[in-house]
């Protein structure tokens, strides 16, 4: 492949969204529009004729490398079948705060945790355990997070009221063995 095609491949791979043509052109100010178009053609043909598992497609005014549709079903099946994932203890603690304090904003969670929780919120959103449930008043109208039906399902709860009440927590936690 030409150097420009290699650069485009790396750029498209590392970007999470379709990249518009003008952004691709900004990668190499010396390359003409025609050269970029040619390199994209080269990349697409390489994927199509070389027998690759991915393809180059034009979506929503931009370019993106996507998995070929014939493989997606297999990949999804395997993802569902592999051993269950675990949440990190930090993610669980963030989830616990949201469960008991919902609706709650990011700043308030960070106040309690004492660190930035952006990546944790992202993990929990991706897992569908929390969702944006509203916006607070005030500057920037920050998003408020709350738990989802998937959260209840995960813990086999019928409703949030089934979580131990705050003052019952001591009893619920006592099942953990303690040692001197």
């Amino acid at each position, binding site marked *: 492949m030409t150097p420009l095609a290699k650069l485009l491949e*790396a750029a498209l*791979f*590392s*970007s*999470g*969204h379709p990249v518009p043509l003008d952004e691709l052109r900004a990668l190499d100010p010396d390359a003409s529009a025609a050269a970029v178009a040619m390199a994209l053609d080269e990349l697409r043909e390489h994927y199509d004729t070389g027998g690759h598992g991915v393809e180059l497609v034009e979506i929503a005014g931009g370019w993106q490398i996507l998995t070929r549709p014939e493989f997606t079903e297999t990949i*999804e099946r395997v*993802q*569902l079948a*592999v*051993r*269950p*994932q*675990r*949440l990190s*203890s930090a993610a*669980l*603690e963030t*989830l*616990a*705060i949201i*469960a*008991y304090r919902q609706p709650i904003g*990011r700043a308030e969670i960070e*106040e*309690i*945790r*004492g660190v*930035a929780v*952006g*990546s944790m*919120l*992202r993990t929990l*959103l*991706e*897992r*569908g355990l929390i969702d*944006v449930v509203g916006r607070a008043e005030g500057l920037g109208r*920050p*998003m408020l997070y709350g738990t989802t039906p998937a959260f209840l399902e*995960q*813990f*086999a*709860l019928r409703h949030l009221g089934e979580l*131990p009440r*705050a*003052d019952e*927590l*001591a009893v*619920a*936690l006592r*099942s*953990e063995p*303690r*040692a*001197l």
Partner: protein
Amino acid sequence: MIDTAELIEAPFVIELEQFSGPLDLLLTLIRDERVEITDIPIARICEQFLARIHSLGLSDAAEYLEMAARLLRIKVQMLLPRHGSGDEWEDPRAELVRRLLEYQQMREVVDLLERRGDDRRERLGRGVTLIEPVRPTRPLSLALPELLAAVDRVLRMARKPVLHDIVPRALDVDGAIETIRALLHLRATARFSDIVSAGAEPWRILSALLALLELARRGELRVRQRRPFGTMDIARDTAGEAA
């Protein structure tokens, strides 16, 4: 659709200080002076350490002050006349040397991690955003006791008692003081295990400890430990009583 902009990471741990701690500073001084870790000219290094923490504005940092005090103590010990023959003399620097060697070894690993981390950062992974169509995700192994254990950890780790409304139990130092006084009224001596039963909850243990310290401070009792981590013997302080 979720606005990912709000979730973009805050910049992570920016290097604010020149040294990551007193051992780092000490190791730098030793390297600059080209002396052996195992044979530190303690008076000279101590003097430089004090000068550096002063010039770096670290004189208020507890960990640097603690190290400064340790160096001064070793310096004094080095000046004391040696008892016994050479073999029996224990070098006052020995513990510091052990810690410095351990720390230096760890710094070697840090250099390695730094190289590996830089190398990895030079390569970008596949960009994935929340805007992409949501795929069925892997099953999650997670049950209610784990969530409740997380609540417990939050309560322990919270910097401020922001969740105090669900703290299961506050400390009861006054109650523990009464218990200990009552016990010492009946008996002249007691053991810690007489006050706190095995398997007691942490708040009880902590309350009893604080109560003991408070009573010892008031001169009502004496606490003695024959060896580190051994049982604590508690005795009524008759002198204190008489006063």
